């Protein structure tokens, strides 16, 4: 038996007489989460990067230093200056403005693929866990087949067939990650479903669907949030790769992957043109990965000591 078994388990079980009777427990819970969050550097750094990205994307709808699409051939490929902090591209467009606007595409790509993977994968995992038997087998084996197909290749094929578009590419990435969500959901749902409180709920007549909604989902939400944030970074990478290949977001819309792709042709004139979006992609992926790890530290009960 570990040390954790005796005193720490007991420490969690504070007798109610000790707590201020009127203290709303909900806020106590939040403040505990906040206290843990402050001790998780990954969560703080990741959260900050992600927040900045989201703010940038929102901001770009109302303001960017210059019009990201505004062509000015006379200042094409000018390096950084006080007017254009990160310089201009081959059409004279402001690189900083395009970076800010490109955040939109990146966020959009992440949201679309996570939504698709989650909206299909989570229910599939839940039902597989609850029904078991043949349905479980069918769902999970279908998942294996999808998972076995290379995601990027699927996205490329779809884009080639349907024409380049961010949405099409991200639907392909989203579908490819349905099995990941389904598997994570199924695994954690099985643990919850085998607990006595679910048996108790059945004993007072809660139907299977209500059990999933009232007991299983709230108990695995933390794990799913972590998963979503990790998938977000995978989606960003996939989207930039497709854009780089010219199979994702069509020009002239600003997107980071595409910026690197076109910068290739002008590496001799201004190598920094490829570096800026590269840094942006790196930070975005790092941000979501750190956020995912941080959330896991804070939310996942299995990692709590």
């Amino acid at each position: 038996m570990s040390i954790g078994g005796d005193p720490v388990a007991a420490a969690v079980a504070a007798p109610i007489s000790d707590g201020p009777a009127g203290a709303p427990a909900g806020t106590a819970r939040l403040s505990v989460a906040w206290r843990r969050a402050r001790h998780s550097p990954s969560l703080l750094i990741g959260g900050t990067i992600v927040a900045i990205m989201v703010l940038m994307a929102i901001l770009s709808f109302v303001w960017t230093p210059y019009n990201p699409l505004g062509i000015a051939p006379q200042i094409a490929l000018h390096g950084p200056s006080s007017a254009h902090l990160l310089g201009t591209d081959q059409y004279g467009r402001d690189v900083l403005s395009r970076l800010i606007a490109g955040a939109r595409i990146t966020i959009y790509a992440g949201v679309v693929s996570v939504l698709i993977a989650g909206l299909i994968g989570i229910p599939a995992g839940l039902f597989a866990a609850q029904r078991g038997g043949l349905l479980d087998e069918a769902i999970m084996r279908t998942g294996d087949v999808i998972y076995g197909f290379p995601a990027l290749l699927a996205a490329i094929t779809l884009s080639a067939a349907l024409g380049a578009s961010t949405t099409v590419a991200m639907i392909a990435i989203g579908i490819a990650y349905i099995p990941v969500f389904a598997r994570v959901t199924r695994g954690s749902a099985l643990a919850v479903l085998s607990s006595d409180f679910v048996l108790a709920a059945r004993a007072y007549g809660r139907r299977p669907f209500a059990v999933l909604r009232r007991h299983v989902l709230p108990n695995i939400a933390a794990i799913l949030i972590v998963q979503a944030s990790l998938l977000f970074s995978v989606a960003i990478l996939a989207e930039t790769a497709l854009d780089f290949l010219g199979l994702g977001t069509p020009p002239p819309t600003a997107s980071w992957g595409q910026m690197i792709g076109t910068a290739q042709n002008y590496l001799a004139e201004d190598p920094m043109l490829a570096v800026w979006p590269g840094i942006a992609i790196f930070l975005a992926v790092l941000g979501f990965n750190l956020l995912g790890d941080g959330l896991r530290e804070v939310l996942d009960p299995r990692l709590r000591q």
Partner: protein
Amino acid sequence: MSTLSVRNLTVTLGAAVVVDGVSFDLEPGQRLGIIGESGSGKTVTALAVMGLLAPSLRATGQVLIGDRDLLAMTERQRCEVRGGTMAMVFQEPMTALNPTMRVGRQIAEAIRAHQRCTRAEARQRATELLARVEFTDPARQARSYPHQLSGGQRQRVMLAMAIACDPAVILADEPTTALDVTVQAQMLALMARLVTEENAALVLISHDLAVVSGMCERVMVMYGGHVVESGNTAQVLAAPRHPYTAGLLATSAAVSLDSDRTRLEVPYIPGQVPAVGSFPAGCPFRSRCDRATAECAVMPPIEAVGDHLAACHHPLGGPASPQIPASPQIPADLAESGKE
């Protein structure tokens, strides 16, 4: 000289005191029972004595084996003591055994960690040990994996590992709690016999007063990290001085095979066991004690009350209570019953 001598052992977790000033001596062949509930500090005491505390816990005081202080040793020296001079049996044999290793080999490795011998000799010894812990077909069963054995069998494997290197002291932490009652009875009888044969000292940790009282001639009752009562088992059972011990005894006696089963309410200790760190300052039991006064805000020292020791400002007095149970049997007797 005592085999094991624990002096003023204190374990802290940050600012919280988990175990506070525990002292006891063990002579060869002696059996000491430690009684406690969750949060009493009984398991932490055992782990501290073994030098197995988690890094977040800090132990002070002395754990003397002969004249060497375990707490002052390097980890390397402690490893020699653990499994050699001192061995431990844990509550959950499933997690204490390596699931990927055949049990015979696990016992053999325990032997080879402390004794110079060839692999074949160690295997031979392991099979003999399995026979000693009453495996009917030790040569075959040595080749089993832990999951192929029953809970009782696994716990007997643990016991075989514990006695592998002729330890002077065996610590057993709730060794029968996870077992069925009939298996528990077998296990206790076996432990009693082996400890006698090895002439080892035994520290038996349990929440069950009845289990300890049958096995151990001395008992120590812990509550909230303190030893609240200690002494000869028969004397403590006959006339408990600490209200906590008395409460436990009354509860155990009221729900037993020879109590008045029609009584509506059994005597109980009011309130809940506080969480670690939220026991009241002073006497840890005062928040649940009907004899508590202002005086109890100061922890009473453990001192002689009648024929044994208790830490209470207002100990229960008077002559021994009428429902004295039979005095514990002597070890020789236990050895007899174990051979059945």
